[in-house]
C-alpha cells in the first residue's frame, strides 16, 4: 500500500512538471498550427535564468517570477522576429525550431558551462513530509499542487474569459475569427508568450527537482511530445490527461521494470500513433 501511494505521488509530481511544458506546446499548436521543437529551449532557459536569478538575489521566489517572464519575452521576440516567417510551412517549422533548439543549447553551454547544477530551494520546501508509513519530499508535493493550480487557472482562463473565448475560436476556425475583426496576430503572440512562460516556469521548478544540465532541453522536449501525441494536439484536457498518463507509466515502469526504464514512455506513444494518430482528445 505504502509502495503504491508513494509511486502515485511520484507519478503525479512528474506529470505536473510535464503538464506545464506540454500545455503550452499543445495550445500553441492548436491555435497556430505551429510545431515548436524549441519548446525544450524555453525549459532550459527558464532553468538557467532561474539559476542566475538565485545567484544574484539568493531567492527562489524571485527566480520563480523573473525567469518565466524573461523566457516569455524571449519567446515573443523569437516568434515575432523569426518563427512567424515560416507560419504556413510545416517542414520549415520543424527545421527552423530544431535549429533554434541546437543554437540555444550551445549558447547555454557557453554561458552556464557543462557542469550539472541544481537550483537551491527555499528552506520551507526542503525535507520530507510524513504521514502514516508514507515519506515524501515536500518539494515534490508543492510541485504537484502548483501544477494542479496552474491547470485550473489555465482552464478558467480559456473557458471563462473573453480572450480565452477568442483563443478557443481561433483553434476552431482562425479565418472566421480574423473575419469578425479580431487581431489574431496579437493573440498568437500572447499565447506564444504564455506557452513559453509556462515552459520557463517548468524549467525553474524542474531545475530545483532534477537539476539543470546540457541536454535537459532534448530530454524534456521528447517527453512533452510524447504527452502531446497521447493527449492529442491542441487540447488542454488532452495535455492534462496525457501528462498524467506519461507521468504514471514512466514512474511505475521505472520502479517495477527498471531494465526497461528508457522504453516505458515511448511504447505507449508509438502504440497511440499506430491506433489513434489524433490522440485521445485531438481532432483529426
Amino acid at each position, binding site marked *: 500500500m505504502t509502495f503504491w501511494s*508513494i*509511486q502515485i505521488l511520484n507519478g503525479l509530481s512528474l506529470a505536473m512538471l510535464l503538464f506545464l511544458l506540454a500545455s503550452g506546446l499543445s495550445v500553441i499548436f492548436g491555435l497556430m498550427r505551429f510545431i515548436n521543437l524549441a519548446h525544450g529551449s524555453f525549459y532550459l532557459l527558464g532553468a538557467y535564468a532561474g539559476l542566475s536569478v538565485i545567484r544574484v538575489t539568493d531567492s527562489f521566489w524571485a527566480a520563480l517570477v523573473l525567469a518565466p517572464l524573461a523566457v516569455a519575452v524571449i519567446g515573443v521576440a523569437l516568434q515575432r522576429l523569426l518563427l512567424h516567417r515560416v507560419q504556413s510551412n510545416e517542414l520549415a517549422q520543424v527545421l527552423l525550431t530544431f535549429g533554434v533548439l541546437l543554437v540555444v543549447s550551445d549558447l547555454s553551454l557557453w554561458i552556464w558551462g557543462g557542469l550539472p547544477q*541544481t537550483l537551491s530551494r527555499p528552506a520551507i520546501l526542503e525535507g520530507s513530509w510524513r504521514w502514516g508509513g508514507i515519506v*515524501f519530499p515536500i518539494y515534490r508535493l508543492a510541485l504537484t499542487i502548483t501544477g494542479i493550480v496552474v491547470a485550473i487557472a489555465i482552464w478558467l482562463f480559456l473557458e471563462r474569459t473573453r480572450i480565452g473565448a477568442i483563443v478557443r475560436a481561433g483553434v476552431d476556425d482562425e479565418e472566421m475569427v480574423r473575419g469578425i475583426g479580431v487581431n489574431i496576430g496579437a493573440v498568437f503572440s500572447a499565447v506564444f508568450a504564455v506557452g513559453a512562460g509556462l515552459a520557463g516556469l517548468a524549467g525553474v521548478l524542474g531545475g530545483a527537482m532534477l537539476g539543470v544540465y546540457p*541536454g535537459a532541453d532534448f530530454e524534456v522536449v521528447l517527453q512533452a511530445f510524447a504527452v502531446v501525441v497521447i493527449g492529442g494536439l491542441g487540447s488542454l484536457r488532452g495535455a492534462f490527461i496525457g501528462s498524467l498518463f506519461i507521468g504514471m507509466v514512466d514512474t511505475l515502469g521505472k520502479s517495477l521494470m*527498471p531494465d526497461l526504464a528508457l522504453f516505458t514512455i515511448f511504447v505507449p506513444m508509438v502504440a497511440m500513433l499506430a491506433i489513434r494518430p489524433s490522440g485521445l482528445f485531438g481532432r483529426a
Partner: protein
Amino acid sequence: MMQRVLRCRASRRPGRCRYWWDQYSADNQGANDMMRKFAAATVVAAVAAGTSWGATAQETVRIGVLGPNTGPYAVIGEEVKNGFEMFFAEKGNKAGNVKVEVLFEDDQAKPDVGMTKAQKLVERDKVAFLGGVVSSSVAYALRDYAVNQNVPLVVTVASADGLTQKQAAPVIFRTNSSGSQASHPFGKWLADQGYKRLVMMAPNYAMGYEQTGGFARTFTAAGGKIVKSLYPPLGAADFGPFLTAFDPKQADALAAVFAGAEAIKYVKQFSEYGLKGTIPLVGTSLLTDDLILAQQGDAAIGITTAMHYSSALDNPENKAFVDAYQKRYNRTPTFYSEGSYVGARVIHDALVARNGDTKDKPALLKAMHDVDFVAPRGRFRFDDRNSPINDIYVFRVEKEGGKLVNKPIAKFDSISQFYTWTPEAFMAMPDYASVANDWAK
C-alpha cells in the same frame, strides 16, 4: 571545374555552352585532369614528408588526455585534467630532458565521441601516450584502437575490469582500482559486520555491474543474500521511482554506486525519501568522493564506502599532495585526481628511464610496467596485467571541524584486482556484466 563541364554538356544546344568559361573548361578538360593529378600527388608527397618530419623531430613528447567536460561526469573530467596538469607543472613540463606537452579533449563520456577524439589525438596531434578516460564505456571502446595503434593507454579513472583482465594488453595500464577491486574485500567486510541482506543499486552499464557485482560475490560467498538489484539508466534525472521500489524492512543495507553529479542527487534524494536513518547506505567511494561531499552536505554523514584513496589518508606523501592541490585548485583532491596525478607520474618515470625515447615500444612499455614509487595512496606498482595492487580502505563520512571527510575505519593490505583468487580462476568465472541480474535470484 567538373561542374562547369557538366553544365556545358547539359546546355540546351549540344556542343554549345551557355557561358564562355564553360567552353574554356570544356576545351581544357585534359589539361585540368593533369592539373588535378599533379595537385593530388603534391598533397600526398607533402603529407608523407610531414609524417617523416614528425617521426624524426621528437623533442617534445605529447600526451593526449581524454575526459568529459559536459554531462553527469563533468566534475570528474575536471579532476583528471587537474591531476595531469598539476603533476607536469611540478616537473616544469619536462620528463628528464625532454619537453612534455599535455593535450586535453572532451570525450563527453560517450564511446563514439571518445573514439573520434582519440583518433584526432593519435593521428593528427601525434601523441605518444593516451591518458585519462572516465567512463568505462569509453575505456572499452578505446581498448582495441590503442592496441592496434600500439599507443600506450593509461586509464586513470575508468574502472572497467576487462581492460586488465580478459582484454589485458601490454599497452593498457590502469592507475586507479579495477571495478570490483575495492568491492571484493568490502563485501566480505559487510558480511563480517553482521549484515545479512543487501539491496543493490547502480547505473546500468559496465561500471555499475562490476562495482556492485564485486560485493555481491564476496558477500554471498560469506553467507549474505542479495534481496534486490536495481540498475537505473546512466543519467537518470530522477531516482525517486527507484528509491521507493523496495521495502527498507527487507534489507539490512542499501549498497549503491553512483558517481559525479548522479551521486550528489542520489544521496540527497535518499535523505528526502526518508531512507536516511531507516537503512544504512554503503557503496564504493564514487558515491562520496571528497569533491562532491561538500555539495551532498549533512545528508552524506554515516555513508560507508570502500576505495584505495581519500584525501584523509594520513601519510607524508598524501599530506604534501593534498596541500599542493588545495593551494592550486582551492579544493580537496579526490581519488580521481590522485589517480590521474599517479598516471602522469607513470608516464613521466618511464620517459625518464628511457631518456625520452618513445620509438622503442617494447622497452617503453616495460619501463612503464616496472614503475615502483610511493604515491599519495601509498606504494604504487603494477601486477602482471598492468593493474595496481592497492591497499583498500573502508571509509565512513564524518564531520570533522565543520568539514565532511571520508575517514578510514578499516584497511585491507595489498589487494590485487583478483582478490584471493588466482588470475586464471577469477577470469574463468562469468563477467560481472553478464550476471548482473542473477544476484537477487
